């Protein structure tokens, strides 16, 4: 199997989906001849033509709204927003239309669209380019929110997102677009949505994360192992709806849980998971649920951004404290 980067896996999945299904349309700013600002769509316009790989005007609201209109006609549009900080004009379309058109028409119209966007900080980009506001999206009923953490899962989950009959926001961890490498077979096999992936088994503490932050989380698990602490690492992968069963099963086994995300803490998705554990697994707990997150501040520009993002040390410290509790 060829080794490739995460962004190459995204490209491979898009090409495969377009090859398999003439209804798949890719659209966004600079996705055509330029191949997207991160090259996720490179080569697609040459292969599938400018009608199916469509350079739109510079208008993010339009991109999301076009997707709704196309999808309601039975196309499968995959829109690209260049950075998550530019996703906000799309929120009206996501909240008021994409996520609810099936429900409000009682199934008469549906919205099988995907909106892709880079996610997270750590690439020393200008301001507004480093957002991780996935919790805002995960709050929307009727939507799916998916974040891959490896090339293999980027390929399989994006294929699943495109084939899904409902709208999916697909968040691609910018920091590991090229840093993550792995073998991907272009077999057209999708991975399941709504399912968490257990990346590492362990009995002592459960570490839950998603997207780019799994890199630090896995490194923390290695460091903990050197101390004789066996951490179980869960890649949540789909945040809406998320795999409660895997989360609760793991916490029931380990009794300890550390949730890691780079998004700000208050109202972050970690709070949702902590609440679930409090409601449904309190008696399993041997220590308070801990969160290692970004701070409740605007994401700083390049010189300070790494201080905002959870480090391996912060994760290790939180996990050790959980293990030493009581």
């Amino acid at each position, binding site marked *: 199997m060829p080794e490739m980067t995460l962004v190459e896996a995204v490209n491979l999945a898009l090409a495969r989906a377009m090859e398999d299904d003439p209804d798949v*349309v890719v659209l966004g700013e600079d996705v055509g001849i330029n191949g997207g600002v991160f090259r996720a769509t490179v080569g697609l316009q040459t292969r599938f033509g400018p*009608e*199916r790989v*469509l350079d*739109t*005007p510079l*208008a993010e*609201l*339009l991109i*999301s*709204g*076009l*997707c*709704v*209109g*196309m*999808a*309601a*006609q*039975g*196309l499968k*549009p995959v829109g690209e927003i260049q950075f998550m900080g530019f996703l906000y*004009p799309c929120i*009206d*379309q996501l909240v*008021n*239309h994409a996520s609810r058109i*099936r*429900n*409000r*028409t*009682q*199934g*008469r*119209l*549906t919205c099988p669209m995907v909106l892709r966007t880079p996610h997270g900080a750590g690439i020393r980009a200008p301001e507004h380019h480093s957002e991780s506001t996935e919790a805002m999206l995960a709050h929307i*009923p*009727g939507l*799916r929110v998916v974040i891959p953490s490896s090339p293999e899962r980027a390929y399989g989950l994006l294929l699943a997102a495109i084939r*899904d*009959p*409902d709208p999916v926001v697909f968040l691609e961890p910018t920091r590991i677009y090229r840093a993550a490498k792995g073998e991907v077979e272009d077999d057209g096999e999708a991975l399941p949505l*709504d399912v968490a992936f257990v990346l590492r088994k362990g009995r002592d503490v459960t570490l839950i994360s998603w997207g780019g932050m799994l890199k630090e989380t896995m490194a923390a698990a290695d460091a903990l192992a050197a101390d004789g602490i066996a951490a179980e690492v869960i890649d949540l992968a789909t945040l809406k*709806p*998320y795999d*409660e*069963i895997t989360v609760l099963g793991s916490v029931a086994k380990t009794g300890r849980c550390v949730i890691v995300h780079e998004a700000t803490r208050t109202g972050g998705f970690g709070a949702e998971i902590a609440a679930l554990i409090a409601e449904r697994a309190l008696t399993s707990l041997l220590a308070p649920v801990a969160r290692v997150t970004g701070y409740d501040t605007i994401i700083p520009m390049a010189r300070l951004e790494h201080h905002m993002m959870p480090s391996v040390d912060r994760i290790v410290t939180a996990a050790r404290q959980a293990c030493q509790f009581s």
Partner: protein
Amino acid sequence: MADGGLPVIARFEVRHRNYLAPDGSINRPLPAFASDTDLLTALYRAMMLLRNFDRKAVALQRTGRLGTYAVSLGQEAVSVGVASAMREEDVLLPSYRDNGALIWRGVKLEEILLFWGGDERGNHFSGPVRDFPFCVPVGSQAPHAAGVAYAFKLRKQPRVAVCMFGDGATSKGDVYEAMNFAGVHKLPVVFVATNNQWAISVPLRLQTGCETLAQKAIAAGFIGEQVDGSDVVAMRAAAEDAIAAARDGRGPRFIEAVTYRLGDHTTSDDALRYRSADEVQARWKEEPITRLRSYLVGQKMWSKAQEEQLAAECHERVEAAVERYLATEPRRPETMFDHLYAELPETYAAQRRELAGEGDA
């Protein structure tokens, strides 16, 4: 010269279309379809039905049997005229005040009542299956229309998307973004702005500095036409031309239908707070139904007997629809989860069971 003799590189014009004067007399030769008595009387019947329906809907709301409702009073010619120029396979993307267009396209009166009565089943209507439901967030349906039209173009289908919104919507980026894109790709879409002079309490002069709304199409690269929106003949003719052009691959069009909202914005609004009774009274002289009736009667295309019969028909049809609406059993609470996703994820299925009193959640 103040401009230093700089050359003019572009000039634009906006035309205004009108055939029937407020008194029902003719300003210019009518389009060919106007010689078809059946068609003209059908337009008249549809406008009358809409007005009767509106009156009943308001009565239902006032007596607590319907939720907030948006009347079409005074602007019936817009939605009826536009819808009458569409083919079934075209797609309508209406705003919340386009009842007349939905009814023309086959949506049942009781379905519209269900929607305004707070029941999503009203959007699972009997009209063309791909038509969009009423759009409440103003102008947000315009990008959908561009997407629908793009799908038609990609699939080489001779179909047209017709997007309706009010004057307030033309102030939103959504509408401009959609028109701009439609202009770039010469999409088969017709945008219809119902300029009824008031966006709730904000008059047109505070909505735009433009002389016409029609000229907004110029910036998007296509023709914008201003039409007398209280003249159903003009509305039908303008929509017919625009839809034909769009279907033939000549690109989008924009129609500004200049009319007047004689009623409140909705049943929750009191228009007397922001405009005078005198202003409204004066506008009653221009309203579309009397105008067409005067023409029809003058042409001996319509009689008093027909008028009486139509009144009885409208009454009967509306009352029967109200009966069916009021007799519709409410949905069971847990059905709010139905059609949330194609297949309900287990975590929400548990909430559904909780709501159903099946108590394992």
